[in-house]
């Protein structure tokens, strides 16, 4: 891997409510890699992801993160607006063009639902709309927190395709999940019982 890793963490330590979630945690994710983060509930998966995304500052240790895109448990959608309007907002605040919105919405299988309010879409469809932002705002590193839940089989197939395409295009994925991703995960890190 000639290119520098997109994400490298050295001796991370996190203590929350007097409990040490993880310590001396070091790893790095290079371009083209899809690393899955496994571990029981409450083992600090979400906390680690949020810390890497920059939302949670109380993690000690050195971290260097390339431009990343974080998708958490919540979809990051205003349910009053339509998927198109949500993506227009995302395009506005990040400065990327609005031209790609239709193509992205079709890619995640929301053809025909672009202009109905998100609150009328199903859970799976809202999850897909949330993931559409990943394609619109093209950033090399994806930090995903449980992308598979609330998705039917085609949805999970869609996730696999998106991850493969992203890794193939020299992107990287760091994904916390309950069910292992199976063959597309190049490596997996397990957070201990703490």
């Amino acid at each position, binding site marked *: 891997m000639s290119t520098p890793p997109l994400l490298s963490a050295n001796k991370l330590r996190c203590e929350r409510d007097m409990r040490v979630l993880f310590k001396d945690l070091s790893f790095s994710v290079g371009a083209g890699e899809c690393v899955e983060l496994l571990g029981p509930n409450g083992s600090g998966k979400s906390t680690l992801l949020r810390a890497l995304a920059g939302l949670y500052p109380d993690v000690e240790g050195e971290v260097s993160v390339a431009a990343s895109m974080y998708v958490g448990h919540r979809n990051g959608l*205003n349910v009053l607006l339509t998927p198109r*309007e949500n993506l227009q907002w995302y395009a506005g605040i990040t*400065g990327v063009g609005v031209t790609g919105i239709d193509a992205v919405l079709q890619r995640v299988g929301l053809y025909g639902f672009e202009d109905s309010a998100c609150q009328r879409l199903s859970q799976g469809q809202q999850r897909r709309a949330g993931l559409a932002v990943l394609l619109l705002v093209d950033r090399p590193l994806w930090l995903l927190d449980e992308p598979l839940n609330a998705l039917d089989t085609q949805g999970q197939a869609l996730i696999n395709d998106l991850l493969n395409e992203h890794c193939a295009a020299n992107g990287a994925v760091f994904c916390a999940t309950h069910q292992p991703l199976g063959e597309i995960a190049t490596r997996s890190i397990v957070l201990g019982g703490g």
Partner: protein
Amino acid sequence: MRSAIAGQVISQVVREWRTIARAPIDVANPLMFFFLGISLFAIGTGGEREGLAEIGPAVIWVLVLLANLLSLDTLFKRDHADGTLEQLLLLAQPVFVPVLGKVIVHWCFTGVMMTLLTPLSALVMNLTLDQTWILMLTLILGTPSLSLIGAIGAALTVGLRSGGVLLALVVLPLYLPVLIFGVSAAYLAGDGLAVTAQLYWLGAIAVLALTLAPFAVTQALAISVEQT
């Protein structure tokens, strides 16, 4: 760079405008509260016209303060719940620009709305034309700082259970200077005295709030987001 910032503000304002258009009740409630409060005071003083004119400006200003306080929830609560607030903090560069866009839209639907309706409330409160005019002037100058300072309180308390009362306790003491200059201007105008000093002060506070508040709001949002 300039177009990027303009693009951010426009897209944020358009988004807020659409959200409010889809759920106007969030904005209508504070205005209803404002007029309900005015009629309560009018009924409370037995509708006797001199008494009302005496307390009119103070009542209107205090109710504007409280209505603004009630409407602060609509600023961040929805975005905090559905995760867009996190995305805003992560993706927008610089962050305070869309935040400022949100506060401007909030001001339009609370401060400006109540200022435009002042003739109506002044009529109910039996104020002179001069007082009404000065009252509107002080409101249009004072309400921006209310929204800006209020946004700091809203951002600090957005994720908390006891948000409402805490927000009032945190924000109302900081509203005091605006209230004082607003009310005193209306009373002095009633006696036909000059009010330029008050207007200068209101303008100065508004400019101070405009320059400092967005950064405090962004910092407060980062603190609230880290707790979920």
